């Protein structure tokens, strides 16, 4: 049951409070329409709302632009949504230091525009969506396809200011690029999916935007793909991304793909290189040569890269699975997805990173279990990132390492369980039943 909308409007001003009406239609059924959504302008207002919620023990769903709310545990029993959407200012930007402090509701687009003026950018570079926010991207630890070179938020968040479940606010870290002053609590918040704190300000280190970007596109037969990739990986080239796509998917029927369109079972390799012009060209040539006959495809860049970036994103009728392996172990995911799900799966693997995304239109519980079973042997973890409401499947969460410590951190930050549950929503290999919590992935 949500808190009374009118009452919340009276308390915090009707201008700040609306009902549940998320921009993404897929999320409409996520919560009842009368659930109050509060969008404060300032940290003090934020604190006030949290004090109210904690006094009256209302469960709160932390949100940014609400584009990635599907990540993490389902919002069971949410009575109030609190969003940083209106706290969207860049507070400090020091281009010569490559550091920026922004309110959590600042969109990735806004930061890209500001930093772009000085040839800089946010290295993790997740899909910015319509209005994905800095705070949301950090809380969900969303990363881009160039993670091989640019890492994740862990590597560029310098500090944070947060509001706690009891309405207090704290800071950790700093604004400088090097800092070991006190515990690095921001690390805990990254990827915590709104289960510990509300991020309200984030301090980040920016990176220089590459002068040039280029791609090599190649078709690889599965039998040789792994060996080819390993050879590239062991050589001197420094790709920003080595993406493998097992696309039988109709959505990849654009011209560039059609040209390189592969027979069933073939993999499509996208190697991306970044840097100064001469350096990129040299690597493109070398890479193409090593893959004999591969195409250096400059114009694939703009259009197809953007399409690839969207692959891990939710779509109304798709399931998105995420598989975590060792850096070069992504073939386990590619092979398992093909063997278990057949042609209906589109798998995008980040070679050298160890992350793969599998997109499926429909999935049976037995197939999921078989998929997990296959990957279990290699120790890989499978997470259901997104499942459409109607195609819901129940999946066990993963075995949390140091489960009692993890739970203790959760109850330290959120003793009244007012925020989201812990983000343990993966189906994992070797799950120990006694450690599995009651959380379920499906959307009800």
């Amino acid at each position, binding site marked *: 049951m949500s808190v009374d909308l009118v009452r919340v409007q009276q308390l915090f001003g009707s201008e700040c409070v609306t009902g549940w009406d998320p921009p993404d239609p897929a999320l409409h059924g996520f919560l009842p329409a009368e659930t109050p959504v509060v969008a404060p302008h300032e940290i003090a207002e934020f604190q006030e709302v949290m004090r109210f919620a904690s006094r009256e023990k209302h469960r709160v769903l932390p949100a940014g632009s609400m584009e990635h709310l599907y990540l993490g545990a389902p919002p069971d029993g949410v009575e109030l949504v609190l969003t940083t959407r209106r706290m969207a200012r860049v507070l400090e930007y020091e281009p010569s230091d490559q550091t920026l402090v922004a309110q959590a509701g600042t969109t990735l687009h806004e930061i890209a525009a500001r930093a772009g003026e000085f040839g800089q950018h946010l290295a993790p570079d997740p899909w910015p969506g319509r209005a994905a926010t800095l705070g949301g991207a950090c809380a969900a630890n969303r990363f881009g396809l160039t993670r091989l070179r640019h890492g994740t938020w862990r590597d560029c968040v310098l500090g944070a200011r947060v509001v706690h479940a009891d309405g207090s606010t704290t800071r950790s870290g700093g604004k400088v690029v090097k800092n070991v002053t006190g515990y690095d609590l921001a690390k805990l918040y990254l990827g915590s999916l709104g289960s510990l704190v509300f991020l309200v300000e984030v301090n980040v280190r920016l990176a220089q935007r590459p002068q040039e970007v280029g791609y090599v596109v190649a078709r690889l037969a599965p039998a040789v793909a792994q060996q080819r990739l390993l050879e590239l990986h062991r050589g001197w080239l420094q790709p920003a991304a080595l993406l493998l796509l097992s696309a039988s998917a109709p959505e990849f029927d654009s011209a560039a793909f059609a040209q390189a369109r592969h027979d069933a079972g073939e993999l499509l390799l996208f190697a991306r290189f970044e840097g*100064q012009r001469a350096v990129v060209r040299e690597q493109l040539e070398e890479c193409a040569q090593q893959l004999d006959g591969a195409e250096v495809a400059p114009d694939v860049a703009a259009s197809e890269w953007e399409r690839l970036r969207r692959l891990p994103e939710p779509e109304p009728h798709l399931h998105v699975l995420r598989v975590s392996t*060792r850096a070069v172990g992504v073939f386990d995911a590619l092979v398992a997805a093909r063997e278990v799900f057949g042609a209906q799966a589109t798998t995008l693997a980040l070679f050298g990173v160890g992350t793969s995304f599998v997109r499926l239109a429909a999935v049976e519980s037995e197939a999921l279990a078989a998929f997990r079973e296959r990957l279990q042997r290699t120790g890989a973890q499978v997470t259901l990132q997104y499942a459409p409401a109607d195609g819901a499947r129940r999946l066990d969460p993963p075995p949390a390492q140091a489960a009692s410590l993890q739970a203790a951190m959760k109850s330290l930050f959120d003793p009244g369980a007012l925020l989201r549950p812990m983000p*343990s929503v993966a189906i994992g290999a070797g799950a120990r039943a006694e450690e599995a919590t009651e959380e379920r992935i499906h959307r009800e």
Partner: protein
Amino acid sequence: MSPSAHARLRDDLRALLGARVHDRPEELLVYECDAMTYFKNRPLAVTFPESTAEVAAIVRTCIRHRVPFLPRGAGTGLSGGATPTRAAVLIETARMRQVLHIDLDNRFAVVQPGLVNILLTQAVAGSGFYYAPDPSSQMACTIGGNVAENAGGPHCLKHGMTAKHILGLTVVLPDAEVVELGGAMADPPGYDLVGLFVGSEGTLGIATEVVVRIEKQPQSVRTFLASYASMSDACASVTDIIARGVDPAALEILDRLTIEAVESSVYAAGYPREAEAVLLVEVDGLEAEVELAAREVTTICHERGALALEEAREEEERRRLWKGRKGAFGAMGRINTDLLVMDGVVPRHRLEWILEQVYRVREKYGVTLSNVFHAGDGNLHPNISYDGRDPEETQRVLAAGEEILRLCIEAGGVLSGEHGIGVEKRDFMPYLFDDVDLDLMRRVRDVWNPLGLCNPDKVLPTAKACVEARGRMLTLDSETPVPSATDVAKGEAQP
């Protein structure tokens, strides 16, 4: 601790480790401080475990005897992290120094915490790999100590601090439970406890195995030494190098006094003595990109009026140029009996300002202070040489140090860039964080370390302590009683 309680503790430890327990006064002497010599306190005993199980057994024994314990690597720490503040047992990792596993394709290695930093690189160098974080103490410091301090080093400018290179840990928690955190698999589920542990200075447990990221050696490396008639020209070169999009691997500045100390020592590197500052620049990466970067660096140094610009022609010369930088603390240490190495950080664009202030503070307090610093990331190391036997001089040195750190914070910076807080800067924490911030850190620590026995009195000022407590803290009596577990549980004592 009473002699009989001490004897019982020793007997229990001996039963576990035999002769790998040292407790004779002459054996303990070298363990009474780390490289921050100002604060000294002898431990009750030093233990030398060889495995995770032995570390856990030592911890269990300490808990049973209600004796504090703390991990120690090589003792090169510069903030008193491995120095006991109370009658405590040291858990020295010197006998846990194996490389357990190397996986080149997946770019990781599993090592024991006592492995010396440079030996990790040596273990993979033959295959064309290396371990990137390179503290200047890398010939001695351990991976466990690096994890605990989130150690940096000259090349962390481009390649990142230790935290970026740690994938997983096996940790003996302060209650003796053994847990695995993270690992070689991407994105382990749950909170990033590895990220929290790195930099926690031995207060959250003892790392007994470390999964580290290893990297391919760069195809090409070029090293330059530019000398300047003024510090501000050197700083301006740094600003320009970054502004023009060069991504240098290292940007290090040494001031005149440091140059003199280095050149008069065994670390002499041929730095020009007449210069007010030298700038050491290294660029690495693919040959073509290094070539471009090198050209840019050369142009900038000349534009900024470098008196001379030298490039290392071969590996031998490169080593020579680095020898002076890496030996700078050692060289300064020879000027007097003691050395206070500071570690404040400022936003890079405030470098010139802070250096002016540092020199002003030097005059104000009449101390022997030199500067050697990681200019690329605004991490200062003002070094103050002094005679620790002279209480008046020591007071001046401490006051100067404190003022410099306050100035760093005023400039938007922080207390420490890589050496950690330890006991040294513990009571300065309120300059940067308010009570609520510190209280949260304390509560996080207490979740991991509920009895407060694991490396007590470090990093965070005690709940009631305020800045004025500094003097008291440093003379803490090694017999200060430790509250019992039940007292803590009953809420009758602060751990």
